[in-house]
């Protein structure tokens, strides 16, 4: 079951299928594969029918982020919500590389972290299965102000506050 939020709305019909490394790649449909698999099987993966997204986690070297910019979907995986590395990946993708595709959080994705994730540029969230995505939607409106700005907006220091 996918418990998906995209752009602050629940999504019932998500076309994307996450393919595990040991599973065969279907000939059709939109899929994601791990970055490792993408590197090894780039040629075969490019010839199938359907869109391709890539999954990465906190170990992903940020120097390689610019190789991902043509992809329509980048999945950032949080094995535990306390592992905050992919907040940096998301922020760099948006702010430094102007990536405008979907960045989707998977793994230990919970209501009390999604607002921080969104402010770093993550715009889709697969909420952990045992939690209701409807509840998580409420987290986005908890703050109407912040000091850092959202990905491309200026740091609102005193002098620049309207």
């Amino acid at each position, binding site marked *: 079951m996918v418990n998906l939020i995209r752009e602050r709305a629940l999504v019932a019909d998500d076309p994307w299928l996450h393919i595990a490394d040991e599973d065969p790649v279907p000939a059709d449909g939109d899929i994601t594969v791990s970055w490792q698999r993408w590197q090894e099987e780039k040629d075969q993966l490019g010839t199938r029918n359907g869109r391709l997204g890539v999954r990465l986690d906190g170990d992903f070297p940020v120097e390689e982020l610019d190789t991902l910019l043509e992809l329509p979907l980048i999945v950032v995986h949080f094995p535990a919500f306390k592992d*905050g590395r992919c*907040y940096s990946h998301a922020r760099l993708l948006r702010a430094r590389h102007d990536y405008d595709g979907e960045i989707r959080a998977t793994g230990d994705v919970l209501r009390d972290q999604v607002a921080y994730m969104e402010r770093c540029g993550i715009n889709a969230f697969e909420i952990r299965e045992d939690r209701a995505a409807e509840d998580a939607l409420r987290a986005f409106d908890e*703050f109407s*102000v912040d000091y850092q700005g959202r990905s491309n907006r200026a740091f609102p220091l*005193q*002098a620049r506050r309207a």
Partner: protein
Amino acid sequence: MYQYDQYDQQLVDERVAQYRDQTKRYLAGELSEDEFRPLRLQNGLYIQRHAPMLRVSIPYGLLASAQLRTLAHIARTYDKGYGHFSTRQNIQYNWPPLESVPDILADLAKVEMHAIQTSGNCIRNVTSDQFAGVAEDEVEDPRPYCEMIRQWATLHPEFAYLPRKFKIAVTGSERDRAATQVHDIGLQLQRNAAGELGFRVLVGGGLGRTPIIGEVIREFLPEKDILTYLDAILRVYNLRGRRDNMYKARIKILVKAMGPEAFADAVEKEWQHTRSDPALQLEDADIARFRNQFPLPAYRTGIDASAVDGLLSDNASFKRWYTRNTVGHRQPGYRSVVVSLKSSAQAPGDATDTQMEAVADLAERYSFGEARVTHQQNLVLADVALDELEALWRALDAEDLATPNVGTLSDMICCPGLDFCSLANAGSIDVASDINQRFDDLDYLYDLGELRVNLSGCMNGCGHHTVGHIGILGVDKKGEEFYQITLGGSSANDASLGDRLGPAVSKDKVADTMEAIIHTYTELREGEESFLDTYRRVGMKPFKERAYG
């Protein structure tokens, strides 16, 4: 001091509402312990030995009288009538019910205070020099930069789940009173040859179980680049810091593993991207706006510089207090007063609700309505006119806040220890009390001069034992409390880590051992030589022989 605008207030109010909802969901069973833990920690709430402990942020140690009154109100209403000021310029309450914390945070928000990021693996309260803005040796006031950093760090979305906690200290004086060399990042404000303002940047210092002195990774960082550079350091740490072992997760371990040069290179490389980020690059107007938030108080002129001369020659008690508890001020006719929280009647750093209210009143009457918290767990009234010193002294004395012991052996830094803290292996408050009783002769304490004794109840080192001239560390030996003693530490400009005296001693032997150390010092010192200088000259041997002889 800094006053919230609508924006700051809204953020803090919304934070209270958010935490109220999180607490409600936790109590309803919708959030697990593990899920709730980082949320409560990032709002200052620990679960402790007897009850929760709430740590409230006092950004860079600055308190208005109204804020101090609210802290007193919280102590009285939700706690047992006292609070504990910590070495990082926070205040801790030891008994607040978990259910009441949202109400406490709401009370705090009314006076522009919060407990945001006082715990958890995030950027903690920014600390600074308690004499900022008034110190005679100050290059530039660090407070505007502290406030800028506070705002930048507050609810930072990228750096809320770091590998481990992260502490920043800023100083603007020649003398380092903010222990910048033992912080994750230490910033030393200075002017370069061209007269421009900037920071010397240190990283990777810290205490705890792996004490390390920070390394300079940049000699001069222009002031306008401070946020872009911090952003670069934090990103390198967030991405590369270890997450597999919490004891190896602090930035000091990363800096050590990479080597300071390689770490500095990684930061510089990242900074080449961030330094031109318009969102973080400061303009003159930004810096000016923050500076204008810290105007000089309306000092009186023409104060009689000899106002206390008569009293100094006639009244030995006043003279003691003046000598130990007041310091020189940049403004003619003024002194800064340290309010000692180290009376023998209370645990080091503790203040009762009545004492807090008294200091709030006295601050209003004598020091422009402002008090400060020091790294050594005392309070400061920074701007007191000489002709009002006597009245202030008498008023403080009436509240047991004028113990003339600042900087002496009995002005100990001390953690809450086994009595309160769930991490501690041994008591600290009772040991401090034993030492106090042993050295209760004030004249003797003065004769010993500047002596920093730091006491921690476990190796996490909240009492900064590793950088005490004399450090005392509580350890557990088969269920009994023992104390490891170190000599020669310092967190000042000449920062160093203490050396072990020898095997740990039992609790009833700590005061005896202290006495042996002090006797050795008084026998060996040359002239006015301080304890630290004597130790550095003669080494450990004579102390060890006397202590275990």
